[in-house]
């Protein structure tokens, strides 16, 4: 192609890209009060299924609004919001991120808890190591997989094990023995689940909702509830929300009866 063609092409591409870049407005409430536009929800990856169902239900109830989801790691989401991402609502897998955003004045009002997620032990469906109770985590030769300690699920898992160790029926040796069985630490709790599903591990500690996803591929062993650690999920409207009305409605929906039913169905425990 000739020089002029190439220059023209380059310019066209650049203009095209910029046009794609410019977002449409997110909309506001119309005059008569009905919600319109888009509400952009940033949510932790572990909330993917539940929030998709929630989003469909919300859209069904508010015909003029569409929900756009951005699922990701809670820390990454917080970083994005700090850098000016156009989020209206943030739902995180732990408090730390929302505290961080709150300190930076990026949260409107106070975050509210909308769901809890308890930890469970998962083993492959055929249970090759023959686990029956949580005490079996200390079984010698067990291949145990946990999430990394930096990841909430990993931190909580270790906390549960420590809690159990303080119980006389388990004994202080339990903690060391269980932790000695850890053959791998994953950056993502879903990876823990995957390893158990694939039979790469004899046992893993994941959220109850994760276990629900794997269905028949894994079997679940419960922790005693008095020692269990439960992850609390907060949700909040961002201070720079472009569709404040719809955002608040969404948060209300999440906390309301319809929302809570959806979370329960997904395996979450309900917020107090």
């Amino acid at each position, binding site marked *: 192609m000739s020089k002029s063609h190439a220059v023209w092409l380059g310019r066209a591409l650049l203009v095209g*890209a*910029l046009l*794609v*870049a*410019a977002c449409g407005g997110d909309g506001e409430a119309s005059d008569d009060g009905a919600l319109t536009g888009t509400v952009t929800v940033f949510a932790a990856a572990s909330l993917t299924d539940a929030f998709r169902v929630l989003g469909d239900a919300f859209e069904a109830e508010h015909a003029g609004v569409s929900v756009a989801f951005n699922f990701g790691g809670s820390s*990454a989401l917080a*970083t994005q919001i700090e850098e*000016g*991402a156009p989020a209206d609502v943030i739902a995180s897998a732990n408090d730390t991120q929302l505290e961080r955003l709150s300190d930076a004045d990026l949260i409107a009002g106070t975050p509210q808890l909308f769901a809890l997620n308890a930890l469970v032990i998962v083993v492959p469906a055929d249970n090759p190591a023959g686990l029956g109770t949580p005490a079996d985590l200390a079984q010698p030769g067990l291949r145990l997989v946990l999430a990394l300690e930096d990841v909430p699920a990993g931190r909580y898992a270790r906390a549960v094990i420590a809690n159990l160790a303080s119980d006389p029926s388990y004994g202080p040796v339990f903690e060391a023995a269980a932790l000695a069985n850890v053959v791998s630490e994953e950056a993502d709790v*879903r990876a823990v689940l995957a390893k158990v599903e694939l039979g790469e591990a004899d046992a893993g500690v994941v959220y109850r909702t994760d276990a629900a996803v794997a269905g028949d591929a894994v079997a679940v062993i419960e922790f005693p509830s008095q020692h269990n650690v439960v992850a609390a999920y907060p949700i909040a409207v961002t201070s720079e929300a472009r569709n404040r009305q719809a955002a608040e409605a969404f948060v209300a929906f999440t906390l309301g009866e319809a929302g809570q039913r959806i979370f329960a169905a997904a395996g979450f425990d309900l917020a107090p």
Partner: protein
Amino acid sequence: MWRRRGPAQRPDQRALHAGFAGPAGLALLFLAVPVLALVYEAATAGDVGDRLTNEQTLAALRLSLATSTLTLALALVLVTPLAYLLARAEFPGKRVVDTLIDLPLVLPPTVAGVALLVAFGRRGVLGSPLEASGIELAFTTAAVIVAQLFVSAPFLARSLKAGFEAVDPAYEAVSATLGVSPLRTFWRVSLPLARPALVGGSVLCWARAVGELGATLIFAGNFEGRTQTMPLAIISAFQSSDGLAGAIALSVILVAVAFALLLLLRVTGVEPRARAGS
């Protein structure tokens, strides 16, 4: 290309080729087996067909193909002059520039994404003035292209620079004495002679763009239909109820499409065309 095909292997060469075949086979196995294992897993799970017709998958596939193609086109336009200058021109700080274009390769993709966000995000160094004029780059489809371009352009740059360096300056000199301007010489001689490098670099660039995940996640976000390319859809499937099986199925779809296109690119790109009476 326009080289004569060499004569058949000599006996002494045959011995070397036979000796290399062993390690070469191992290397090939190493590269192929994980991919084949994925394909096998997906085949036994049996739902690849359903996923293929799923709207979310199709949206992700379309987005991946559209953005990576645009990325390649942009890369070609932006990188070619740079590569040519690095190969031919002398200027102060040339070695610094040369090293600079390798930087995106060194950055972990997530870090690259953060860098892009800090530069072009609404609060960013360049992002704030852009936002003031009503242009938002981050968290849009354009951001996907920017993220892909950032991580894949260096591949094209390296390959093309080497390609231009391999073009004998004598050709350009002769072209000048024949009355052809330096720019037309570039189009008629330098670029065509650098074609293998252009194709090879394009293949690498496009492949890297298609596979791009970390920077896209951070800079463009994971918005279905808008920024969720295939790699992002695969990660999302992993996180959702689709789980591992879903991730595997989507991965196989991506691998199959990418392989077909890469092959096509290589085959059509390297074919020589003798032009008469240019």
